[in-house]
């Protein structure tokens, strides 16, 4: 397994995340609606809005994870996904050296497929991802990418709205 790397602008990224005052807040319908839509649209058992704190990924909204609201950052797929601007797709985690022996693959929730769209705020910081997860390998075509990208856009709009309301 390759632990999730740290972006070069980590301190500023964390500052931008904290300034949203969103970590550890209760669930909100405006985010849950998007995540539930994503799970249904892609017919996946798990969909998340994951925000990357110093040492954990915390789920602002989650479908399919029960009471789990965070995992450690080093084993997170989303920690890898925020390193790039575009969507990160892992068609089969068992075939990917970064994730094949990851505890989230070898054990619950037994991730095989992952697609994560970085939540890039207008200031350029990737705070986390909107991601979908399956327990079986999958393909993900250009239309799927476009739909996930649209849903990511809707999440970012909500995050930005919250930021503007807090100012």
């Amino acid at each position, binding site marked *: 397994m390759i632990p999730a790397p740290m972006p070069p602008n980590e301190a500023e990224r964390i500052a931008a995340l904290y300034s949203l005052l969103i970590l550890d807040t209760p669930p909100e319908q405006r985010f849950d609606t998007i995540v539930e839509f994503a799970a*249904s*649209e892609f017919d996946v058992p798990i969909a998340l809005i994951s925000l990357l704190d110093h040492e954990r990924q915390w789920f602002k909204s989650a479908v399919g994870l029960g009471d789990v609201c965070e995992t450690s950052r080093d084993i997170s797929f989303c920690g890898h996904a925020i390193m790039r601007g575009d969507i990160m797709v892992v068609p089969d985690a068992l075939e990917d050296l970064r994730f094949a022996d990851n505890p989230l693959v070898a054990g619950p929730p037994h991730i095989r497929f992952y697609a994560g769209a970085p939540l890039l705020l207008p200031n350029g910081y990737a705070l986390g991802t909107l991601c979908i997860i399956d327990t079986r390998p999958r393909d993900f075509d250009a*239309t799927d990418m*476009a739909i996930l990208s*649209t849903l990511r*856009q*809707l999440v970012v709009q909500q995050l930005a709205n919250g930021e503007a309301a807090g100012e």
Partner: protein
Amino acid sequence: MLLMEPEDMLRRTVSLTARSLGMAEIHEAASPSLARQLLREQRFHGLVLAIDCGGIHDFSLLDQVRQGKTASSPAIPIAVLAERCDAGLIAALRERDVNRIILKPFRARVLLDTFAVLSAAANERA
């Protein structure tokens, strides 16, 4: 193209994704009254309309289009979104020359495919 669908997430997702994929521009209407206004003011090359209205099917927009009472050609391709379907509905839609019926629930992807088909049909007619 015009999409009349009350559910916000579905409507927004379809129109924004169509735009990002470089498909035909999709105008959105969240209600029949807004769709009626848009149909009066603008010319469309295809329509996708939700027809369920309080447990009954509302064909008034379809009829307006087919009767030439909008800015669009009466012959434009039309797809209909419905909660359920029976022989009566099929007959009513055939009578109105509807190209396709899509039963709910469906994925945004299905609507995107539908718009692609309607665009092709509109281009053939042009």
